């Protein structure tokens, strides 16, 4: 809804989370979920740039980097970087913990997750992500609810 209030047009962003990337240290994309439409070539660029921004940062530094007009919150787990791109003014720590919650869910689902799990089961990771974040918004934050939903799907296999 575009509403004119005293000449100010406020347009809510189309999506809070723009994309989520899982990349390893070499920059190989392990998972990429975009919540805003992007051209294929643009996605490449984004993945390349995010990897470059994130990979060589000192571990002591903040887990936040400015990325174009947005902000990337990233967290490193072993050789994997989980990066979330959000608005420049959003609560960084909250997203940092979002990533962690996601990893906890993965860890629970795969019983001690490792990169190998994610590589071979990337389609399941997508399904988990769909239960966690929908249309760029946090949809469910209860680990148990997500795990239950996933195990119902697993039963079908």
């Amino acid at each position, binding site marked *: 809804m575009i509403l004119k209030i005293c000449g100010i047009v406020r347009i809510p962003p189309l999506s809070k989370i723009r994309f989520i990337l899982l990349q390893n240290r070499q920059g190989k994309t392990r998972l990429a979920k975009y919540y805003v439409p992007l051209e294929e070539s643009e996605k490449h660029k984004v993945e390349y740039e995010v990897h470059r921004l994130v990979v060589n940062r000192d571990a002591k530094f903040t887990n936040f980097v400015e990325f174009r007009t947005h902000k990337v919150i990233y967290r490193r787990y072993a050789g994997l970087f989980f990066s979330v791109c959000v608005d420049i003014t959003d609560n960084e*720590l909250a997203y940092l913990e979002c990533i962690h919650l996601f990893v906890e869910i993965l*860890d629970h689902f795969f019983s001690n997750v490792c990169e190998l799990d994610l590589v071979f089961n990337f389609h399941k990771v997508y399904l988990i992500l769909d239960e966690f974040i929908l249309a760029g918004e946090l949809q469910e934050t209860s680990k148990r*609810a997500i795990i239950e939903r996933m195990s119902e799907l697993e039963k079908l296999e």
Partner: protein
Amino acid sequence: MEQLKTIGRELAMGSQGGFGQSKEFLDLVKSIGEARSKAEEDRIVLSEIDILKRKLLEPDIPKRKMKEYIIRLVYIEMLGHDASFAYIHAVKMSHDDNLLLKRTGYLAVTLFLNEDHDLIILIVNTIQKDLRSDNYLVVCAALNAICRLINEETIPAVLPQVVDLLNHHKEAVRKKAIMALHRFHRKSPSSVSHLISNFRKRLCDNDPGVMGATLCPLFDLITEDVASYKDLVSSFVSILKQVTERRLPKSYDYHQMPAPFIQIKLLKIMALLGSGDKSASEIMYMVLGDLFKKCDSSTNIGNAILYECIRSISCIIPSPKLLEAAADAISKFLKSDSHNLKYMGIDGLGRLIKISPDIAEQHQLAVIDCLEDPDDTLKRKTFELLYKMTKSSNVEVIVDRMIDYMISINDNHYKTEIASRCVELAEQFAPSNQWFIQIMNKVFEHAGDLVNIKVAHNLMRLIAEGFGEDDDDADSKLRLSAVESYLQIMSEPKLPSLFLQVISWVLGEYGTADGKYSASYISGKLCDVADAYSSDETVKGYAVSALMKIYAFEIASGRKVDVLPECQSLIEELLASHSTDLQQRAYELQALLALDARAVESILPLDASCEDIEVDKDLSFLNGYIQQAIESGAQPYISERERSGMLETTDYHSQDHHEVPSHALRFEAYERPKPSSLRTQASTELVPLPEPSYYSEAHQPISTSSVSERESSEIKLRLDGVKQKWGRPSYQSSTSASSTPPQAANGTSSHPDVGVGSSSLKPRSSYESKKPEIYPEKQRLAASLFGGSSSSRSDRKSSSGGHKPAKGTASKPPKENPIPVQPPPDLLDFGEPTATSVTATDPFKELEGLMDSSSQDGGSTDVMGVLYSDAAPVTTTTSVDSLLSELSDSSKGNPGTYQSQTSKGPNSQEALEKDALVRQMGVNPTSQNPTLFKDLLG
């Protein structure tokens, strides 16, 4: 390598380790993993694409096989290759009745297609069917797809069903329906404007997940229109209260905080609602105060909530007590060792400083530490803070720092931003004109290509107009200093074009004005510029015009003009220039040189750049000439509009323009055409129907029948060649929901004038601060940043008292604080990290021996080794516990959160098995291995 293959085969057959994929799939993933270069990877993928293309052509592919092909295609796309040849197969798979296949189909489709892809239309029907399914998992799958694939045109096809699903008995469905509706609202607000009351209803859902999800759309709605949701303030407060009192199910706990993500969403909403609203703010005081007490500042998530509280407090009208609590939280952040927390602290400081300006002063050393930190993110945040706390007493230090940083970075995006901030601050707070010009010179020199051209124009105007005082002497001094500085800078190589334009202009106008520099000197310099930047036509143009002015002033003052030889050759060169603009300038200059003093003076009077030139738009001085022409038989002028007879068609255009957004596919049958008698009446007051806002509806309520009348008339209009692909623009009259005048929507929109939060304004408050005497190396910086009252400063202020900021934005006079302040002794602690670090006993250390022994056979270091070297599992639950509390400096563990895990989750046996498997696949532990686990989970 050989070993790897065997393992792969084993995996393929027996699905050990839960991988459960076919051999081909595993081989693909494995070979990609082994690829040593991007080229090799590409080769593998291309051959895989070939294989899949061939396989997909085979008849009667078993469904299970097909599913795997699709997954392989998803993988290929993820690697950045085009799998569009197979999109249609993914679409087909989503039609399948088997849920597993359907999910895979939907998954692939959501990853492959954007909402505007042509194939979407083939999925809409399936989605419609699936939304009606009895199996809620099918419904969920369809709703997931909706959130990605449905666009404005297809919303109406699924909208009624999605609305029905809001009352589904399964909470998972309700939740996803809310998200889908939210998505519709973002895509096309008008299509769901009559449904937003549903969001309010769902706020009271029994299931906390649904309630949590509802907060997303409500946040958006409240951002747009605060006033309509004021009644919910107490509801939100009471929800937050209940959450903090742990009334939600334990499964929402995260690191022992009750539903923290829901708390954060609520706090964001409260910030909106309480902004500029005293009574709403007061309702929130209690719960906010409690939060400060309850939040565990040893965990990240606790701090995330604290930070959100600070944000809320900076938005609402806070109580002194809350401000104090927020300040305490900020100082804890700033004192922390963690860069993340320091960053949050600096950010919080920037927010609070608007309300209580003196808050920064106790943290000055922490701020300076952050400013000097090697971490760019932190540094930039600190610059943002400095920008917010700039006032005339510290502007010099801050802007100098900013410029130093600006020079040091390469990132053009940020360079632009910081350059424009420098300019803004300089324009607003400049203590003196000389300083201002210096700063502008630096900005132009180092970021001239990045600053807005307006900045250059402002600078030129400033130099031309002076600072608005009637002090000609000061003005000419300013100009002289500008000219001097430019003559100096000009010798530097490679100046930005924009800067050269400014330089040329100023030299042209004022280069010789003071008599200090001779015309030939200045014109020589200008020729040098034109010569050195011969590829830049704009600069050359500026230079030639400047030359023209120099010579004009010379001629006008009666001196004899000697055109320098290099100048002469420049003019000659430009006379034959390819650029007509340069050519014209050169001819003008040549013509001017031949004129006498009186004529020249009226063409280019001295220092007249600020004089208004009256433009006679009607060209009235030509009236006599026209009269004459008409009398002698010429045709009178007819305006273009009249000539082309466009009068009626323009109406069509505007109409068409309005209707563009309403283009949409129809999913219902067409209505019968209405009698044509209505047409004329309707077409006169055509209101474009699905206008993005519902204002028009609110102001002139229309009955259902009139809507359809209007539509029928639109059909007729369409027939006259207005471009239209399918059907009418509006489906609204047939969907029962939208044809009734939306009561709720009208209600929400009826207060357009309220809700401009004062938060959007950025009041610039000046504040006084003290100057403690600590840390000799930083003391000076701190003093100049934070101390507004040192004697040297007041001297400067008085000396520059006569100047006014360029833009006319009055800077607030800094408050004087004459009391010399003794340094608080405890400030010394600021430099020292006070956080206690509890060293967590690393459970992996204990396991190290175990792993080493089990992996001694892992031989060569190949790519797989690198690839999977980190991929080894955590071994015990206790380790997970302790490590999960990462960054919190505490190894307390989270027994609550992880209870479920101990029952179901990993056990050491399983983990070791998996570890062994990973190792068998050719992974040998590298030196990082032990720390890997620490990384992986904390």
